[in-house]
């Protein structure tokens, strides 16, 4: 993924329309052209806010990915529930013969 700027100094190098379009593609969200100015401004103001992180001195600080530094709880790999496909698929927008229907992906 290439963005228009490669520095972290976002206050001086805000993200631009192209960046937003690239991000929106990554996130699989369509953004209408007429909203692009507004979205870009808002994302830039948020990125300016979070850019304050760069002031923090974090040399030798271990990143904290879990609040209790706990490892993942594991359980025995046992079957606890029987087939529930019908109930689970009741929420699907389109199904057929127990399958989820989507637009054709293979020619």
């Amino acid at each position, binding site marked *: *993924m290439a*963005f228009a700027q*490669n520095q*972290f100094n976002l206050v001086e190098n805000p*993200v631009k329309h192209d960046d*937003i379009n690239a*991000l*929106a593609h*990554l*996130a*699989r*969200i*369509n*953004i*209408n052209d007429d909203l692009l100015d507004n*979205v870009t401004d*808002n*994302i830039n*103001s*948020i*990125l300016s*806010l*979070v*850019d*304050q*992180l*760069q*002031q*923090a001195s*974090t040399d030798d*600080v*271990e*990143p*904290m*990915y*879990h*609040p*209790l530094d*706990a490892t*993942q*709880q*594991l*359980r025995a790999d046992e079957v606890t529930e029987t087939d*529930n496909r019908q*109930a*689970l*698929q*009741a*929420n*699907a*927008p*389109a199904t057929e013969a127990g399958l*989820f229907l*989507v*637009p*054709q*992906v293979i020619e």
Partner: protein
Amino acid sequence: MHHYTIAELMKSLRNKEFSSVELTQHYLERIKQLDSQFNSYITVSSEQALLSAQQADQALAKGNASDLCGIPIAHKDLFCTQGTLTSCGSKMLSNFVPPYNATIVENLANAGAVSLGKTNMDEFAMGSSNESSFYGASKNPWNIDCVPGGSSGGSAAAVAAQLAVATTGSDTGGSIRQPASFCGLTGLKPTYGRVSRWGMVAYASSLDQAGPIARTAEDAAIMLNAMASFDDKDSTSVDIEKSDYKASLNDSIKGLRIGVPEEYFQDGLDNDVATLVNAALAEYEKMGATLHPISLPHTHLAIPAYYVIAPAEASANLSRFDGVRYGHRCDDPKDLMDLYKRSREEGFGDEVKRRILVGAYALSAGYYDAYYRKAQQVRRLIKQDFVDAFTQVDVIAGPVVPNPAFGIGEKSTNPVSMYLEDIYTLPTNLAGLCGISLPCGLSSDNKPVGLQLTGNYFAEAKLLNVAHQFQQHTDHHKKTAPISNASNKLNSNQ
């Protein structure tokens, strides 16, 4: 009977002053008559509630019912409820009817609680005002021109308007404590891992935690007793024994060491809030506690760290909403990419999209170290501030929010101004600690103000004890929102 707390209702039900069915009918009638003012409910489950109430009455008649048996509560609309719409305040899930119950829904049902329905919330729990809900803003019962807070805004408004005696909420950055503060209620965010997240629609998985919103600390303790459990369906659930949160409510707090962080009383704190919080601290001193100035020097970095970590986790969590297996799907997709992009464009609101985009940015190649990793390093610094503080003090006290409830529309156009609301609540989530908000008075314009207590890991019983003792010595928690247009019938039927 809607003025009663859970503790009072427990006695009345056992003394046969009224049945759970009568109580439930009363609440359902109040919701029907009053909730158009507050928009606190998304779904009201009348039939199911009455059925649960009948079963509760049978259990009560047998004489061995648990505390919550027959007590009418409501769930934030992000807890999956089998057979009942679980919208998460989003168009994306406005047609989603879960085939299973969240663990806490199951726990509360097993305890005999009667669910009246599902409460309004900011979309996917992203917000501090309840204004981002697809179902419209919920209103603050103390002042309907003001927000009830968020994201558990409907849960707080419903209790404040006495349309449920207590509710469930979730707190990722303050979403239980801030609305509790804005609505004059007691709200508890348990330690990360204390309450199961299974069946709770995920926003930021390393920060999310479910908890109760109630009228008193005692009620919150009764709720937490039922909600807390180890759950092997939640890989982040912590397998340590839970306390009986009611058992220690009456312990003496003489000699309790209360830490007062200087960073929580600086610029930006509203005068009324500062005055009321300081008065609450003085009250604690009278009760035999001692106050100790402390420093949490990385507090100012909590907002930037949170607004990297939470959006990053949200962008991953919300990738499941793709228009294929459940949730909103756009009309006539021309191909799979179009299906994804338009379903998500149409299904998500502005704030959710913003956070997904920020998260995608923070996680993208070349930016991960500068944002996500950096934020996780800062997170450890914030945690270490608390670990250091808790070597000197038992609990930490300060304001919940810099100001009382703000006006509807006042902050909704500027996302960053909304984010600044969370300055005092975010650090608790980043560190994974428990925190409680309890009422400590009314501002000069008659809006509730909350006191926040932060406790050490798994110190919920201590927090509830310290909050309960305050409520034994003060009556701030007994003040109720001035509800207008209540019918005479409802007013007389207390």
